[in-house]
């Protein structure tokens, strides 16, 4: 059972690569900032309007940003053919996916948490009282986005027009995540905040379904 130790080593490598340059995090944060500003022109960001639109806008911004953030995930393993080296170094190829999807979840979560205070201030939505629930939703949704997105970026990395292909494959597939996390966030930012358990349960189900699928079929995505 060397899956988890292997994945842990690879996760260390993913984190080191990113935190040396912080390229992914900075570009994603700037991208989301741009989207947040642009969105403010499409409706009047008073607190009543924001309650209705902000949750959806936030998740749409995260989703679009993630479709950019996940691009280099497998692409950068191609330059020096490091993917072959990775494959040779682990007994179970699922470890590669596990490491990459954990790293992506962490990156997304970090981006979301960094932008949340800014978003709350600019769109007049109070988040402090429900912060712990928001973190749970952010985690479950980011995990789902990363599981499906990591798998699909392994596909798109080997196709033509890969930069266009990834969002095309990813966004429709992630519709359930967008719907559920928007609704849960909306309930949390309501005048009388409440926790929508069915939405949280739904996100968890999505994560389990796609994690299982990736565990079963992931190795075929890495075939030569």
């Amino acid at each position, binding site marked *: 059972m060397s899956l988890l130790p292997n994945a842990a080593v690879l996760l260390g490598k993913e984190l080191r690569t990113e935190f040396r340059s912080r390229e992914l995090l900075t570009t994603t944060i700037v991208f989301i900032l741009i989207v947040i500003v642009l969105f403010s022109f499409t409706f009047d960001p008073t607190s009543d309007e924001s309650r209705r639109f902000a949750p959806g806008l936030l998740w749409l911004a995260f989703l679009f940003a993630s479709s950019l953030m996940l691009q280099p995930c497998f692409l950068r393993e191609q330059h020096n053919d490091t993917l072959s080296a990775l494959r040779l170094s682990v007994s179970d190829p699922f470890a590669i996916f596990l490491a990459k999807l954990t790293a992506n979840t962490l990156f997304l979560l970090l981006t979301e948490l960094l932008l949340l205070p800014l978003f709350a201030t600019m769109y007049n939505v109070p988040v402090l009282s429900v912060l712990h629930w928001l973190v749970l939703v952010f985690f479950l949704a980011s995990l789902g986005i990363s599981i499906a997105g990591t798998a699909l970026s392994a596909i798109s990395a080997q*196709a033509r027009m890969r930069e266009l292909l990834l969002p095309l494959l990813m966004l429709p597939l992630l519709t*359930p995540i967008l719907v559920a996390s928007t609704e849960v966030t909306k309930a949390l930012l309501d005048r009388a905040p409440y926790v929508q358990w069915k939405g949280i349960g739904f996100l968890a189900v999505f994560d389990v379904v796609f994690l299982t699928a990736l565990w079963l079929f992931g190795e075929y995505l890495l075939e030569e």
Partner: protein
Amino acid sequence: MAKNILAAALVVLLLAAAAYASFFIAPTDAKQGLIYRILFLHVSSAWTGLTAFLIGFVGNLLYVWKRQPRWDWLGVSAVEVGLAFTTVVLVTGPIWAHPVWGIWWTWDARLTSTFVMWLLYVSYLLLRTLVEEPDRRALFSALFGIFAFLDVPLVFGSIRWWRTQHPQPIVMGGADSGMDPVMFRVLMFAWLAMLALMTLLLRQRYRLEAMRSELETMRHELEAA
């Protein structure tokens, strides 16, 4: 060749009979009047489209498992045929909705989820055009097809849970649901006719894909020689 023409003639006959039944045998709906008759086309196409996607899913799974090109051919043929039927659903829906709901389109659960499903399978076909190497194309599209199929119930569930305007299921729906027995039999017959059409299309499309693949192999051999 003669067999093909015979099969096609049979399907045309079945479709004509289904059309006759839905216009003249099924009773007129008490509330909606004539326009409801589009249901026989709309619902039977929807079920047939889903059947085709199920066949595609089985083809995808078998390809990943067996790695024989024929399962890839089955996968792509079923998805294309399923997309054609789903397109019929997306077109007939608004035609019915306009007089009954007063609007062509509403962002209701089943409309939206059917549209998302349609987009998922369009992406499947796009993916196929963007991967050159045949084995890789077959494998990747099969895997994406599997993910897409797993996603469909989640898409339907997620959108349905949060609001809906679409008529609730009347076949295998709740306790108060149900339809006139004659209407039900006509609907089942229409579905049968549509399934026959699907089988015919699937068979032809499969053979086309087989020929394409053969042509591709020959071309490669020629280039190598």
